[in-house]
């Protein structure tokens, strides 16, 4: 198919050609960037937290009429209540492990602070989240120790909720270790979790996400510190791992067992993520990323609508042109064009329009990405997105034009003899 006569014909339909070219260009620019954002959201949603999430659930509960935790006696009482609960949970036949912990990754409840390398350091070297628990934290959560050792029971102490955090030893994530000691020699080094109390790094774990999934924690997302301290408060969180296949059953049994042990507590059941609840980790993950998922779905729907509107535009314009050029098609057929020639004519015409559209769209897509990089600190979109988008739009154009082009190819050559 020679392009010169098609180009000559298109020059006579500048308005339609310009509009559809712009539509294709804008669609490409928006779809490329939207798909890139969707991809980033999906990556965020799917990133591993660092803990073994299978068969894991969390109970958040509060005691009714619990001791204040402001004096040593009430702290001891709270600690005793907490240890009783953990023992109750561990005694359930379908429970594999149970620990008390202040928070978990993706639970939007964060204990965090600055880490320094010197006492009373003015500006901290890194920001990190703190997980308070016992020597059972690492095995119960399936954390991977890559250097050093775990806490021993003797390392673990406890304190009231409003107590002063002075851990003599800590375990940190590799990301935090590398941030604090870029040369990779963090093990055994001293850091200052509290402003003036030295803490020795006795172990390094591969990965553990901070509790908040929100963007404010993006810069220190993998900076976590495990502290061998039981936090004693009027509320408690328990991370419980059920035996394989028994998650739902244990999630039912556990609150009952806790109530049987001590009825003076509040544990809500249901789907709401309130202060006191029982939720599987799968639900916690889904809840944490619901905004990302919603955004990805919304953008996906917008992309789909845009692509449909563009395809409809191509179908509409080509159908209009086929109707308008029926006589012309008949003349071409009378002069020797086969049905395939007519089909190819309209497909080539669409390829030219869509080709111009995707070239313009590629420029717009890159421009839009650069603008969003400046305005919203977005990442640079890989060129593969634009190339794939260009191919997609060209294929969409060819798909959309096929039906009207096929109708055109069926125009009889006798149309040439009909008066308009």
């Amino acid at each position, binding site marked *: 198919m020679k392009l010169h006569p098609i180009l000559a014909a298109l020059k006579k339909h500048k308005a339609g050609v310009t509009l559809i070219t712009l539509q294709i260009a804008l669609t490409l620019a928006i779809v490329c960037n939207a798909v890139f954002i969707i991809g980033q959201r999906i990556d965020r949603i799917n990133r591993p937290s660092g803990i073994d999430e299978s068969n894991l659930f969390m109970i958040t509960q509060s005691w009714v009429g619990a001791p204040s935790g402001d004096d040593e006696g009430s702290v001891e009482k709270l600690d005793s209540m907490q240890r009783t609960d953990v023992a109750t949970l561990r005694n359930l036949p379908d429970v594999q492990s149970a620990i008390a912990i202040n928070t978990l990754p993706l639970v939007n409840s964060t204990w965090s602070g600055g880490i320094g390398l010197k006492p009373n350091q003015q500006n901290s070297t890194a920001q990190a989240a703190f997980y308070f628990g016992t020597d059972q934290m690492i095995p119960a959560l399936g954390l991977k120790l890559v250097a050093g050792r775990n806490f021993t029971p003797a390392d673990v102490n406890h304190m009231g909720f409003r107590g002063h955090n002075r851990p003599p030893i800590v375990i940190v994530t590799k990301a935090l270790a590398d941030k604090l000691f870029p040369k990779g020699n963090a093990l055994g080094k001293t850091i200052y979790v509290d402003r003036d109390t030295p803490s020795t790094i006795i172990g390094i774990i591969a990965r553990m996400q901070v509790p908040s999934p929100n963007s404010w924690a993006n810069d220190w997302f993998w900076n976590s510190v495990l502290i061998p301290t039981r936090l004693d408060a009027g509320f408690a969180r328990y991370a419980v791992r059920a035996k394989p296949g028994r998650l739902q059953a244990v999630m039912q049994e556990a609150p009952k067992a806790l109530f049987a042990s001590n009825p003076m507590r509040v544990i809500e059941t249901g789907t709401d993520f309130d202060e006191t609840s029982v939720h599987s980790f799968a639900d916690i993950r889904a809840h944490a990323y619901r905004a990302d998922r919603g955004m990805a779905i919304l953008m996906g729907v917008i992309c789909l609508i845009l692509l449909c509107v563009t395809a409809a535009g191509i179908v509409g314009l080509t159908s209009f042109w086929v109707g308008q050029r029926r006589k012309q098609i008949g003349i071409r057929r*009378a*002069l*020797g064009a086969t049905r395939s020639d007519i089909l190819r004519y309209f497909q080539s015409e669409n390829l030219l329009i869509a080709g111009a559209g995707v070239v313009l769209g590629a420029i717009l897509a890159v421009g839009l990405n650069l603008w969003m990089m400046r305005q919203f600190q977005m990442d640079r979109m890989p060129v593969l997105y634009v190339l794939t988008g260009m191919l997609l739009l060209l294929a969409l154009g060819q798909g959309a034009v096929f039906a009207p082009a096929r109708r055109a190819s069926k125009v009889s*050559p006798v149309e*040439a003899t009909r*008066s308009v």
Partner: protein
Amino acid sequence: MLKMTHLSKVYRTEVVETYALRDFNIDVKEGEFVAVMGPSGSGKTTFLTIAGLLESFTGGEYLLDGVDVSNLGDNARSKIRNEKIGFVFQSFNLIPDLNVHDNVEVPLRYRGMKSAERNQRIQESLERVGLASRMKHYPAELSGGQQQRVAIARALAGSPRLLLADEPTGNLDTQMARGVMELLEEIHRGGATIVMVTHDPELAARAQRSVHIIDGQAVDIAEEPRFHAHDSHADGAQVGA
């Protein structure tokens, strides 16, 4: 060159069958210039569209250049139209989006001809109709007579064996019509076979032979006495056989 025997064309709807051509016979020899006349609705245009392979027929036989075209597929019919037949239509049928050069080029492109040969043929055929200087003009920039001459150039460029003209002067004033007719006569003198449908007895008189189509049947005007002697409406008349 063109021979139709007992040919019929029926248009069917759910309730009625209409015979556009019935037991239609005609034989046009190579190099002949035949005028086809007849009242409106007699079947002239149907004959021309079937002769030009623009439309299929219902029954009978049609030999074009010795080839039985009854069972040819769409692609084969397109190829014959492209290589053997040249069309000149009443309303010129130029493609308005293309200039004169590109209009004449259309059938040559479908033939897959190389660019150099195409350009040579376009140049020659436009020179023949006296419009070589208007190659870059669009149809809308030409007079009716000029447009028809471009259409004739387009038909001639492919060196067809048969030129089919449907009221070629029907949309032209007398002076322009005369020019177009002279051009057709010149083309005929060059050896082309021409079948021209016309209402105009004066134009028909300039052809070698005239054929009347009445109620879908052909009657050779030269054999008019036989037409009157027989009930040709019922039997039909074989022309030139």
